[in-house]
């Protein structure tokens, strides 16, 4: 089955779960007398979501849409560098988890170096200085000039 039918099925499930949460929403005592409840719109949206998802799942297969990404077939997906993309996403998750513990400058430097290496960059003599300078400049801009707090170094250093 085409990918878009699978996605529509997933959205159908999401709408059903959302609808369950909406219909069983615990109302606060004073909200029960209001004309428009906190779960009115969610209920409507969940019903609409189920209907539209069903329309997509049950509609006959339309002609292929040639523009945009619809032209990507299964053969092309095998050529995709999925490992690199997953590596990048993993790097982002790692960055999120390490940002607070090891500080902004170190985390950013590691992130930029790591992602460039995943993409195939090997000129470390160019890469490391650029990463450090970028991290430093952005930190300076954000912390000093704009006043938004970003801890630069790991907690045990400052």
């Amino acid at each position, binding site marked *: 089955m085409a*990918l*878009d039918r699978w*996605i*529509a099925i997933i*959205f159908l499930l*999401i*709408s059903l779960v*959302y609808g369950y*949460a909406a219909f069983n*929403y615990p109302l*606060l005592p004073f*909200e029960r007398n*209001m*004309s*428009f409840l*906190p779960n009115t*719109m*969610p209920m409507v*949206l*969940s019903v609409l*979501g189920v209907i*539209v*998802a069903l329309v*997509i799942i049950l*509609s006959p297969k339309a*002609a292929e*849409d040639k*523009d*945009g*990404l*619809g032209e990507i077939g299964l053969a*092309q997906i095998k050529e*995709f*560098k999925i490992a*690199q*993309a997953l590596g*990048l*996403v993993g*790097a*982002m*998750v790692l*960055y*999120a*988890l390490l*940002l607070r513990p090891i500080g902004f400058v170190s985390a*950013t430097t590691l*992130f*930029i170096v790591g*992602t*460039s290496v995943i*993409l195939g*960059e090997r000129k470390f003599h160019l890469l490391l200085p*650029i990463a450090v300078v*970028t991290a430093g400049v*952005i930190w300076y801009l*954000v912390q000093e000039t*704009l*006043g*938004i*707090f970003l801890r630069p170094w790991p907690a045990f250093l400052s």
Partner: protein
Amino acid sequence: MFEGLMLGLSTALSVQNIAMVVAGCLIGTFIGMLPGLGPMSIIAIMIPVAISVGDPAAALIMLAGVYYGAIFGGSTSSILINAPGVAGTVATSFDGYPMARKGLAGKALSIAAISSFCGGTIGVILLFGFAPALASVALLFHSAEYFALMVVGLSAIAAFAGTGKVAKALLMTIVGLMMATVGESALFNAPRFTMGIQDLQSGFSFVTLAMAIFALPEALHMVLDPRRSNRGDSTSGEIKNLMITKHEAKKIAPVIGRQSIQGFLIGVMPGAGATIASFLGYAVERNIAKGEEQEEFGKGSIKGLAAPETANNAACTGSFVPLLTLGIPGSGTTAILLGALIALNVAPGPRLMIDRPEIFWAVIVSMYVGNVVLLILNLPLIPYIAKVLAVPRNYLIPFILFFTLMGSYIGQNNATELLILAGLGVCATIIRFADYPLAPLLIGFILGGMLEDNFARAVNITDGVSFMWQRPGTLILLIVGMGLIFLPAWRRRRAFARERAKARQKGVAEGD
């Protein structure tokens, strides 16, 4: 009024104040390019700097320069890397980014700069012509009319419902509306649908969603398919394509004219701002365009780029009307400017024009001067800004990823946002491969909150839904909204029927 204008000109054109405008524009442009820092945050950050200047007129002039600079800077990241950092520049990326991918980044940035300038200038002219009259009209708009305006804004999704994609665009809009209900909204006290995660209590952040939906799938697609980042590489065509030709200027002139007025009027209404104005501008222009010009929208049409840019600048100017004439802030940014005014010992209100005319007129003239300065400063910078795209891929992609991470982090100062960003980014990439249009999701998300709040308020006030047909303003706006949604489908059906009739006449068999 003429002497007021002279007073304003003499104040605004002094050397110190011109220096203030230039400084403000530069700071605003550069900081506006970073996603996550929109005009609101930048002006809030610059208030202490502005206050230390001392003279209220000079301080306001600098803040106005920062405001316009930030709006232009936001369009830059939207056009170059499909990372709209401010809600008002999302519509710019619909046609701006495809143009950049075709190698016309310089031209796209020029068109953005020129349409912003025209929108802002016409807005300023309308401002000092009609400010007091408009203010009294703006107060007549109630929640019912705002609700109808949001529905009209949602009709902009029709622009993404290409052949066969209507249901998919609708589904994405509904998902966006669902995501807008997560968290605490203004009218409902308990958190909704947060699944116990405390970080979701204020809902999804707009910047996180915009980055995850626009910037991340693009970056990941560039990684997955290395040939993609080589398309649109145009170091040779770059400098030639910067200036817009006379033919193109003639094409976008009526668009600019219409959208300046429409954007300004939308901006005058308190609460509706650059976001709605840009979406509506895009939708209206797309509906007005005929035939193959309409097909161009979404693929790099210059009209599709000029319309939201003009509208959002005009709306930003329009949002000054309630502030200057009534002392009521019309948008988040003007609320912060109101704070700045109070800190500078100026009492905004209906008497501002009479008691402190030099400030009133200086602000208005400085908005015009700011527009001119922005154009003069930015047009020469465009070739260098556009060269960002020529950075080697191994550095560009990490920087784009870092950009998006930082934008989300700065917004909420919360590492959970980054995890949400990564997760939603992966989902958005998969959804894009399945040929679902993602822009309606963001439109639904942005408008969903306001739509629900205003609808709830209107229903609770009138104890029922009858306000939709009893208030003439609401009824008219809703009919316009429905029309904008169904007009393209009806037109397409008519064109299809016409073609079938022609084919039948020529004796060509149907269905081949």
